[in-house]
């Protein structure tokens, strides 16, 4: 569970125990998020640590930050993207640097689903855009609100709804439950 707001507020006063709590939760959250963009653990962990330091250095202004938990995801994402681009520049991989891609490999489909449906869904996910995949991750996994997702991905809330709606439509299209199975699953889920 994400640490509640009052823990963040305690950091404002320089409370190191509160800071530790935030650190223990978010450091790993960031690293996990970063892994979706690159396999380079050094870059990810550096970025995560820099953000953790920023949190401490900016602690006096934390009370004025809205949705503080999500706020620093934004810093992390920005920091990591810069680092990834920087490292690509160094190895001369690309002239025109795009945002890193959100990997398909980290998506999993629930095991209890029928194999055919799982394959269909996997294909659907592979056909989503990077932004759609990232939005789904932030909403489904990080349990962030649409507003928070929009802040992190640096797009409007309206655009976030659009991205999510398209992604969900695509998934729904490929979520064809055979009638018999559907009945079975419905019974179990209600």
């Amino acid at each position: 569970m994400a640490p509640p707001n009052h823990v963040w507020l305690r950091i404002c006063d320089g409370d190191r125990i509160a800071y530790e709590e935030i650190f223990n939760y978010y450091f790993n959250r960031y690293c996990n998020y970063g892994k979706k963009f690159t396999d380079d653990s050094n870059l990810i962990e550096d970025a995560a640590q820099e953000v953790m330091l920023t949190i401490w250095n900016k602690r006096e202004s934390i009370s004025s930050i809205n949705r503080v938990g999500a706020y620093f995801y934004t810093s992390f994402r920005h920091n990591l993207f810069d680092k990834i681009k920087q490292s690509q520049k160094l190895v001369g991989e690309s002239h025109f640097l795009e945002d890193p891609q959100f990997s398909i490999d980290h998506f999993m489909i629930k095991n209890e689903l029928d194999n055919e449906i799982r394959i269909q869904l996997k294909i659907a996910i592979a056909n989503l855009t990077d932004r759609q995949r990232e939005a789904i991750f932030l909403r489904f996994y990080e349990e962030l609100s649409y507003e928070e997702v929009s802040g992190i991905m640096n797009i409007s809330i309206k655009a976030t709804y659009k991205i999510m709606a398209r992604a969900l439509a695509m998934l729904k299209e490929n979520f064809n439950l055979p009638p018999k199975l559907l009945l079975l699953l419905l019974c179990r889920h209600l």
Partner: protein
Amino acid sequence: MVKFTKYQDYSESDFLNDELFQNWIFKPNEEINAFWAQFILDNPSKSDYISRAKLLLSSIEFKEDFLSEEKVRDYLKSTFASIDNTERQNKKIIIRSLNIRWWAVAASVLLILSVGYLFLVKQNKQQIAKIATQEKPIHDIAPGGNRATLTLGNGNTINLDSAQNGSLAIQGNTQVVKLNDGQLAYQNENNSSATVQYNTITTPRGGQYQLTLADGSQVWLNAASSITFPTSFVGDTREVKITGEAYFEVAHNANMPFHVKVGNITVQVLGTHFNINAYEDEGVIKTTLLEGSVKVSEGKENVMIEPGEQAQIKNPSDKIIVKKDVDMEEVVAWKNGLFQFDNTNIQDIMRKISRWYDVEVVFEGDIPNTRFNGKIYRNVNASMVFKILEEGGIHIIFKEGKVIVTN
């Protein structure tokens, strides 16, 4: 609460895209569960849509790539070190660099880290007082480190934390050398030593030190302890005196038994490994043997103990009690850079903490009689240790420079 009417004309896609509906799947709570259960009851025609949408949203999961707890802890430590470093520069508080080498002995110590900078809260009371107006209240206490004072035979004292590495003094034929890792060694130029002098090393609360005596015996001193010893050994016994807690690895010399004096008690050995805990506030003097054999004597009474045994002496007039099958790892944990507890109560734990973090501990109200098991590194801030104790239902707060323990 949102009204049901909003949802009565919803299609399956509408449900899929609705934030409140998604929340029911992603982060359910009682209120939200009750809302949707009621909605389905009132609108059975929608139950199909709802089940399918719910199933789709809950069918996608993500692989988790988390770092190990150790790794996160290491990052936390280095982040704190970096924070301390910056704050030191900003506030111009005197902070000393301590290169703590954790005394390498036990194989159980796996990750040995060196802590860059420690914020010596207590050592710098005056500086703290000066900047008290701009300083925030203290919320944490840095751990102890390699700190000690050496008193030479002529009464001169040398602060070992600030002394340069290398030769510190020559007394008679013996050179006192500060090694680079919180260690002091005595080296004899030759054995003919007419001018034996006695030296004393004293560790403060929050200090520890390691020493190699002129005969090659090694001594580890815990916090708030001292050892008095000759700069070279002559005669037919090797004699040293201690207070507090020390661990010995005595170099074997059958011709010259090694005697450790603690008050009225003498521990006699040939060559062996043992620990003596003689803190006054512990109320019991405990000699624990790890290897070899030792004789503990007090007045006319004496006992021989074997490895794994512990001789306990409560009052000067009492009999010596021998305890068998002692957890030796726990006894010498301090020397290996750990706090280790084995069915230990909070009062015993807090005495150790008070010595190592140099803080006054106050108990308030009824303290639960929780027993603690486990180990934690000593080179962490006090808050880390307190956090673990809190899991056992003990509450610890910092107040006016003291540590208050409540239930």
